């Protein structure tokens, strides 16, 4: 939406031009990558350890095996993540009975031991609001694709300033994981200092709905073989929306991740931010030891699904 006008101008006047190139890049030592986003959803929780690889190496990342991975709740309860014998680099925690990982308000410490190096991180589980409803609707007749069906969800921010969320969407069971589909919220809006947050005024709670761009960003950006946009949903499809509570650091990380990876190209490049490293909350216990990248977050999750019947 932000650079919509640029697209208009591009179409009318200018002839931009993009070429895929393969420049030579500098070499770098591989670093440990920790992808540790665990939740209180029922079922197994997984932490993936791998290594960075040269930028143009289009292969699965090399796994890091034989590590010791634990998550400790409030300094007392330990959740052990054991390596999956079938999937190197995947470390799973398996619940016993109805057990789930985590409680809202609790603190967590992740420890990853790889060889002699010990990496640590901390996180906290924040509250999450329920999803009130999901609606499908046909596009406005004035829009360029009037026959498209889009979905939106409604939920209200938790009272107080500084609640941060990641809204994950699954269409027919497939997670929408394109960079352009990252959907994070700071309270009910985009970022800190914004106008959208639930609060209590004169003892009356004012609950604010997520703003439309967040409500609407549960639609896949898919195109057909000719690069024409496809209707996000058609009758028979189903959508599952999850709200994950994330820490402020995780929110900042996902925002940076979107900034750095969502590159629509064309005129938006004029105003894109220069390449910069996204942050990490994983640190080597030994400050002079090898660095690592990646993130650790423990989320509470609320979810709702809906099938699209015409």
């Amino acid at each position: 939406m932000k650079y919509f006008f640029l697209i208009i101008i591009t179409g009318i006047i200018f002839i931009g031009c993009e070429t895929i190139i393969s420049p030579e890049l500098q070499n770098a030592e591989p670093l440990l990558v920790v992808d540790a986003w665990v939740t209180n959803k029922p079922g197994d929780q997984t932490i993936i350890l791998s290594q960075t690889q040269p930028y143009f190496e289009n292969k699965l990342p090399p796994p890091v095996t034989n590590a010791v991975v634990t998550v400790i709740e409030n300094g007392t309860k330990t959740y052990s993540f054991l390596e999956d014998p079938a999937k190197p680099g995947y470390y799973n925690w398996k619940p016993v009975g109805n057990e789930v990982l985590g409680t809202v308000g609790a603190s967590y410490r992740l420890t990853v031991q790889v060889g002699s190096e010990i990496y640590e991180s901390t996180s906290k589980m924040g509250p999450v609001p329920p999803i009130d409803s999901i609606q499908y609707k046909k596009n406005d007749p004035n829009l360029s694709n009037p026959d498209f069906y889009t979905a939106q969800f409604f939920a209200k921010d938790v009272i107080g300033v500084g609640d941060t969320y990641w809204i994950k969407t699954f269409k027919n069971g497939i997670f929408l994981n394109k960079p352009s589909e990252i959907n994070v919220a700071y309270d009910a809006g985009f970022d800190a200092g914004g106008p959208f947050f639930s609060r209590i005024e004169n003892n009356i709670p004012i609950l604010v709905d997520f703003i439309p761009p967040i409500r609407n960003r549960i639609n896949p950006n898919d195109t057909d073989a000719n690069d024409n946009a496809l209707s996000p949903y058609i009758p028979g499809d189903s959508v599952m929306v999850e709200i994950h509570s994330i820490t402020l650091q995780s929110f900042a990380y996902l925002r940076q991740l979107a900034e750095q990876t969502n590159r629509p190209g064309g005129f938006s490049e004029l105003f894109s931010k220069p390449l910069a490293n996204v942050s990490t909350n994983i640190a080597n216990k030994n400050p002079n030891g090898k660095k690592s990248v990646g993130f650790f977050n423990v989320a509470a999750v609320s979810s709702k699904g809906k099938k699209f019947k015409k």
Partner: protein
Amino acid sequence: MKSILSALILCAFSALSQNPNKFTISGYIKDATNGEALIGATVYVNETQGGGVTNEYGFYSITLAASNYTLRYSYLGYSPTIKIVQLDKNSRFDIELFGEAEQLQEVVVQAGIEQANVQNLEMSTNKLDINTIKKIPSFLGEADLLRSIQLLPGVSTVGEGAAGFNVRGGSVGQNLILLDEAPVYNSSHLLGFFSVFNPDAVKDVKLFKGGIPSRYGGRLSSLLDVRLKEGNSKKFEATGGIGTIFSRLAVEGPLIKDKASFIIAVRRSYIDVLARPFVPLLQDGGALNFYDVTLKTNYNINKNNRVYLSGFFGRDNFKFERNQGFSWGNATGTLRWNHIFNDRLFSNFTAVYSNYDYSLQFGRTDNDSFKWNSVISNYIFKPQFTYFLNNNNELNFGAEAIFYTFEPANAVGVSNGTPTDVSIPKKNNFETSFYISNSQKVSPKVTVDYGLRYSLFNYYGPDSVYTYSNENPGTRRRPISSQYYQSGEVIASYGNWEPRLSFKVQSSPTSSVKGSYNRMVQYLHLVSNTTASNPLDVWNPSTNNIKPQLGDQYTIGWFKDIGATRQFELSLEGYYKKTQNQIDYIDGADLLINRYLEGDLLSGEGRAYGLETYFQKKTGRLTGWVSYTLSRSELKVNGINNNDWYATRFNQTHNLKVAAFYDINKRWSFSANFVYTSGTPTTFPTSRYVSQGILVPYNSNDQRNNVNLPAFHRLDISFRMEGRKIRSNGKERKNSDYWVFGIYNVYARQNPFSIYFSQNDQRVPQGQAISSQATQLAIIGSLVPSVSYNFKF
């Protein structure tokens, strides 16, 4: 510092002891056909081999011993006038010069020996007259002032379509752009493709890159001084044209002949008008247009008093629905009064209002909407005096007071019917400065200009200010406490002495060596961390947390005139610049509507150095110039690039520009320009990793701007065809017109603006490898032809 000031004053006034047998010649030099004052015209006294130059208002004053003199009044492109005087009293000579005949002359008449650059004290300045700007082949055929000055040495840009320009390794926000003394905060239309200055209304453009006179301050890198025409004081005239983007019309003429005149010039993009029948969006309240209105009027009250009123209003509108879109623009107004106290004391009093604002609006219904606007406005009062002490001393002194109001965000959002106001309180600032300088001819060969400026910047309440936590450099600092200041209370105050010095040694009649030192202070900061600056960039004043930027520049140069009529000019200039309190940003900085913006800013130091060479041919059928700059611009900021020096985004090692103009015959002329610059720095990743199914580019060495883009080069040409001067019935036409046919980027070079790294756009099933790619973007990917028609009647 005080001792320097007193020494200066002493020095200046010691020169006051006047010889009673000396008399002053003063007056205005103007264009004979339209009455426009000529800026920088010279008066040369044969007998003393000295003289004077007109100031920004066309006024000159020289003091000589009683005797007989031959005075030669000249200006490039005009026929000189000789005046023989018997000087026995103070005399006022207002001179009008005629432009050289417009037709091509087979044999070049004695074009007049022009020696301005060698004999002038000024260095690091470039002047472009509007006729040259109109000849330069331009993008889509629209003569453009800001794109033209990019052909000068020491001036660069990050790429095609980027707003603003960079001078001697300084950022876009370090240029002070003055339109008739009024600061222009955003000089671009349509992002960066066109500038807001209407060529039909502009008289004169001068860029100061160094040796900046003490009467100017407020920015570190440069001063672009744009002066508007006063309007024809002899007869009515209309000029205009239809180009690919704009249609233009300017009307000027006398209000009272030779006493008062006006000019009003209007431009508007017209693509939306043409497109309206076909695009329903434009009929339903959508908009895509930009326009500007420039006007000026002046009244010659009497011999010693003249007033000028000028104004500018420009706007860009982009609405993709009735209630959704962007709009931004500048408005300025300048009132000036020139008063001549006596033959030797010239004064000018200026009052300015300048405003820049932008607004955004989103949301299809009132129940879900977001409205935001941001405004900078300022009022300026500036008394300035020039005292032509004697033939060897010219004293300049004056003051400036600027009252700023910054409104970073007036913003209200409504979600599902619940409104919230998140406006950020406005900031009030007051900047005052005083200056004095003397230009002294120490000996026939040596001239020195020494001056001092003192500036004081105050940040006033009411406002809440914050103290921030100390964090690791490069990470966000959190506000830890806040303090509220009442209305009128001083929150922060900065005072700075700004010494300025320049000298010239005339090593021979055709060559000179010049040097300068200046300290500049900048209290306003353009906060922008995108590749190119954009209309939503926010200007931020210095606060308790943001220190003013300081810059020291040293320059040395050699200037040489070559040729029998001195038709060639050569110059070499070296500069070294050191800057302090330069702003950079943490990774992931949030710059818009952020009350705690200061916590996302970093501060560091900068350095820039370079060598500029410039060779110009000024007269004949072939004119033009070659400019080559070798330079480096770097920053060092704690928390970035492992705390080591790194090249700025606009660093360019080599920068070559060639501009050529050739008169083929009476009707046709040809222009070409060629640009070659080293690619600007950018950051490339070394590695990749997968985080939550997304491929992340990563520079494991934590470097900033570690590689350079491929080189940029481009050739543009244009042909100009003058309309017939004679009708088919043999009578001379009253109107004149011309066509310009141009090709921009003749050999269709795809100059890279950026290279970005991304994952393939296809959806990747979980457990499969994601493919990565690098994409090179050229903003202009082919040649761009254009036609424009221009008329005058």
